[in-house]
């Protein structure tokens, strides 16, 4: 039941806001729908906590297990906080005349739909529907990326659309191959694409086909995860879109795409009988992403682009950890997914207000935030420190596990990881520090910034660094087992 609420609410919200999205209180409606979705998600979560993995819907259209339940909760939560943040943010944007009523309507409507598609992708049990939802997620965001209609925004959106479109198309081919392989075992019909069925028979699936299928799926969904060298769209899209969208893209969409990859990885591993082909591929992509992203962070002048690259870096780290497999690594990867999306979205909130203050995203022109808006300044620097993996924040917890595990599973990889982390630290902190500290020329903000989400997120991340609640740890462990622990 709550399942339908979970998916229906964003849809309803999208439709409502498609008509009312330009009204004065549209942001509140937006937040209200997100809140309702969050409640539905909480309801579902409670349900799962009570009963464990469930198949929902006619012939098992939806499947909720330990792996996606926390992602659902996370997605709904971040979606809600982002809605809260976007309330004043978009008001100020409108005041600055960067968006007009029509675009605001578009923004609000597609925001809700976007959340809906992500929730669909997370909850569906059907690999085909998963694909559809991923594609829909692209389509709903592409116009948001180009919301400001600036040449740069258009260019970013175009690249986003084409690259992700192509990637997704390849993923579809992978899905077809998957279906093709499943059909041999399960026979034609809907069952052949439902993940639970596939998971049940995964050992009997044809390895050769699954290998190819996985390649297509990895390249396809990997494009959306932003794995180097498929990442090219990501910094542009994050840099040019409105900040709330950057926040949800970084914080949520990448997770969902990675989720899709992992679902397929489980099947492939089963088919290949534990042969670690998929793992090896993911480790390769992960390392490459971490390294290249870290190096590219050093070149950034635009604050949002910089944090976009940091997202690539962290996604690479997670992919690497998943690729390594094993209980601890998978646990760490899941934890890292959580803390990364919390931290990164928090950072984007702070950055959003900072850029609004400065009227630019160029870092040289943002100085001494701590003078006029201490809260923004502290939010930004604490968030940066957290994302850079400094304890006691949660990001460190996962990096601790990942690095220690790497050290005794693949010692050769540690130098690469550490070089990357070191370079990223030097580059990012060296750029953020002068933004926060020092003298300033920036004016105060006309509206009161919404910084509650920033500190709520950071508080959660801090908590996860020091204490992981039992049921969460329990999910992580279950999911880790599921993902080949």
């Amino acid at each position, binding site marked *: 039941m709550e399942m339908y609420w979970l998916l229906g609410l964003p849809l309803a919200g999208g439709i409502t806001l498609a008509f009312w999205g330009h009204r004065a209180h549209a942001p509140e409606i937006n937040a209200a729908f997100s809140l309702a979705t969050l409640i539905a998600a909480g309801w579902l979560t409670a349900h799962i906590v009570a009963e464990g993995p469930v198949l929902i819907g006619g012939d098992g259209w939806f499947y909720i297990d330990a792996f996606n339940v926390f992602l659902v909760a996370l997605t709904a939560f971040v979606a809600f906080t982002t809605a809260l943040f976007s309330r004043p943010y978009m008001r100020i944007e409108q005041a600055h005349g960067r968006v007009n009523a029509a675009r605001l309507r578009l923004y609000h409507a597609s925001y809700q739909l976007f959340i809906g598609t992500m929730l669909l992708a997370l909850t569906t049990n059907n690999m085909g529907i998963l694909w559809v939802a991923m594609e829909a997620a692209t389509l709903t965001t592409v116009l948001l990326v180009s919301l400001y209609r600036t040449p740069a925004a258009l260019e970013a959106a175009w690249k986003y659309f*084409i690259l992700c479109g192509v990637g997704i198309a390849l993923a579809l081919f992978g899905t077809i191959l998957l279906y093709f392989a499943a059909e041999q075992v399960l026979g034609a019909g809907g069952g052949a694409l439902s993940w639970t069925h596939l998971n049940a028979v995964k050992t009997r699936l044809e390895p050769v086909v699954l290998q190819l299928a996985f390649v297509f799926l990895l390249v396809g969904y990997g494009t959306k995860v932003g794995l*180097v*060298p498929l990442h*090219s769209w990501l910094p542009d899209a994050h840099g040019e879109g409105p900040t709330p969208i950057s926040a949800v893209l970084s914080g949520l969409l990448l997770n969902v795409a990675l989720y899709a990859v992992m679902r397929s990885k489980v099947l492939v591993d089963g088919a290949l009988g534990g042969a670690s082909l998929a793992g090896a591929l993911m480790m390769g992509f992960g390392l490459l992403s971490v390294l290249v992203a870290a190096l590219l962070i*050093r070149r950034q002048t635009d604050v949002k682009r910089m944090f976009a690259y940091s997202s690539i870096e962290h996604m690479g780290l997670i992919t690497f950890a998943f690729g390594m497999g094993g209980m601890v690594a998978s646990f760490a990867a899941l934890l890292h997914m959580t803390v990364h999306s919390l931290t990164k979205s928090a950072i984007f909130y702070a950055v959003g207000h900072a850029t609004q203050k400065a009227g630019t995203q160029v870092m040289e022109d943002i100085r001494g935030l701590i003078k006029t808006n201490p809260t923004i300044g502290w939010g930004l620097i604490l968030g940066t420190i957290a994302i850079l993996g400094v304890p*006691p924040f949660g990001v460190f917890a996962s990096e601790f596990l990942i*690095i220690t595990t790497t*050290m005794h599973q693949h010692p050769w990889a540690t130098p690469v990881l550490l070089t990357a982390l070191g370079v990223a630290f030097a580059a990012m*902190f060296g750029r953020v520090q002068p933004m926060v500290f020092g003298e300033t020329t920036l004016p105060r903000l006309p509206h009161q910034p919404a910084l509650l989400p920033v500190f709520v997120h950071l508080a959660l991340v801090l908590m996860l660094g020091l204490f992981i609640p039992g049921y969460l740890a329990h999910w992580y462990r279950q999911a880790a087992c599921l993902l080949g622990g």
Partner: protein
Amino acid sequence: MPETTLLDWAWAVVLYWLGLAAASLALQTQAGLTRWVVFPLGILGAAAMAVLGALALASPPTQFILPIGLPELPFHLRLDALSGFFLILLGVASSGVGIYAIGYFRHMAAGPLAVLSLWYHLFLAGMALVLLADDAYAFMVAWELMALASYFLVTTDHKIPDIRRAGFLYLLIAHVGAVALLLAFGVLHGSDPARMAAYSFDAMRENTLNPAWASVTFLLALFGFGAKAGLVPLHVWLPEAHPAAPSPVSALMSGVMLKTAIYGLLRVSLDLIGAPPAWWGTVALSLGLVTALYGVIFAAVQSDMKRLLAWSSIENIGFIIAAFGLTLIFHADGKGALAALTLTALLYHALNHALFKSLLFVGTGSVLHATGERRMGRLGGLIRFMPWTAWLMLLGALAIAGLPPLNGFVSEWLLLQAFLLTPGLTQPYLNMAIPVAAAVVVLAAALAAYVMVKFYGVIFLGQPRDPELNEAHEAGWPERLSMLGLAAGCVVLGLVPSQMIGWLNPVVEALLQQTLPNDGNWLMVAPLSAQRASYAPLVFLAVVSAITLLVFFGVKYVYHGRVRRAAPWDCGYPELDARMQDSAEGFGQPIRLIFSAFMRVERITPDPFDRQPQYRGDSRDKVWLWLYQPIAAAAAWLSAQASRLQHGRIQWYLIYSFATLIFLLVFVTR
């Protein structure tokens, strides 16, 4: 319900400090409350910590597990003799510095003061937690909390670009070091690395690594802790960060934080890994000597007083690390008693340095407040305007210069005894090389005396080099009180070595299963045997002071005490001018000439016909040139290469995807 152990109390103090941090955040508007309530309460905590540490020396190790941390790897805490000793160090130094802070932050606005007090108490809590942590995760968390808090303390005055740069450099190197430690722990896991529980120190103690991995661990740990301690060539942050921080913070960082690195070294190499081979000791010894010499040479050519002290901290850390290396050598060679002697010297020096370096740093803080000047070239003659500060600083300076009968001398004396007793090592090379190493130690010590004469003479003696110095005012009473306390500590530690060695014995025994035989009595310390060597500071002091007074009054009595005041004679040169005295650069000139190979000297010297003659001399650290700039350049080059990937044409991006796809397809179907 088990009875509360010392550890419980120590943990309670940590929580109490965290609470104070939170409280100071709540007191954003009342500067008075923060200064007169929060800081004193913090001092109480520090004192309690010192007491707990002292009690812990005698009692058996206690440990417990907190319900926080990672699942399967909750925070383990442990309080044993070693932690106890460093807790004493932390408690004593931080209570002294805390008293000072009350007065020092007199003029600070409420908001910044609240933030400062927040980080200050987090800093204390972090350091205490480092000493208590008993698993890799808790240790790393505490370690980085310490680094983070100190970073924010360093950048308190973030308006100044140099300070921001210093803070950045500090945090960066601290982070790199932390990563090395992380790796060290990654190698140093328990028997079953697939489980998180393998990263508790107990598991590490039980697990014995094969020599290769053990060495890797040791080197990583040396790197990581060396980065925090300021081991050459990882020292570059220290001369930047210490001057940047407010003086009490510099005192804490230099006096206590550097010691946590020493604690870590001892803990990892002697407790967790165990059975260190001799060559580790050789590595540590040589690095330590290089560091000591390097630090003192650069200290001698500094012209900024806090920077000078920072370099002298590097020197002292060098001493300690050298002692550490010698300990390992003796330990590996089965010379238990000698190892015990060296370790005692190490711990003793750590405590001494905590005291006199804190004293000197807070003293410079008072000078800074009184004159607003850090460049020694603008100071001078302050002994006439701030006698308290000056005379107490004199004690500190004599102590750090390693002069009897103060504490600095005792530890150096013990260390030298250890060096002199090396003959009998099974390794002939070490036999012959180590005495020469002793000579290096002596050279560094003598240079330290040079540095301190320069430091004290240029700041406090002579003529004021600047007219407005005549308005310099004496420090307030909290400052004086704290300096008095620290100076008293220096004197006492100098006078009762025998008792101190007795107190240190449990620590030594815990690490080496061997105590230092002291053949002396309450008056006289005689390590190993009175036949070999002995030193009785009390007699020493008694005789010297007795003779001084005797002669003083004797001369007065036999002849007369008449004194005429006149202008300085100065060989008859009529107009004496403050600018004729040696400037700081001038005093450093011989060192610069002799050791020019170590440094890159940049000088602007006037030619005889200049209307306004300008002189500027600056001696830079060559490590920047040789190590750090190349690394930075390499990173820049790499990222420039990487950024060519991202050059805007969507066709190229499509080609990337295409190539990846094809490559992978070929890869899997090969």
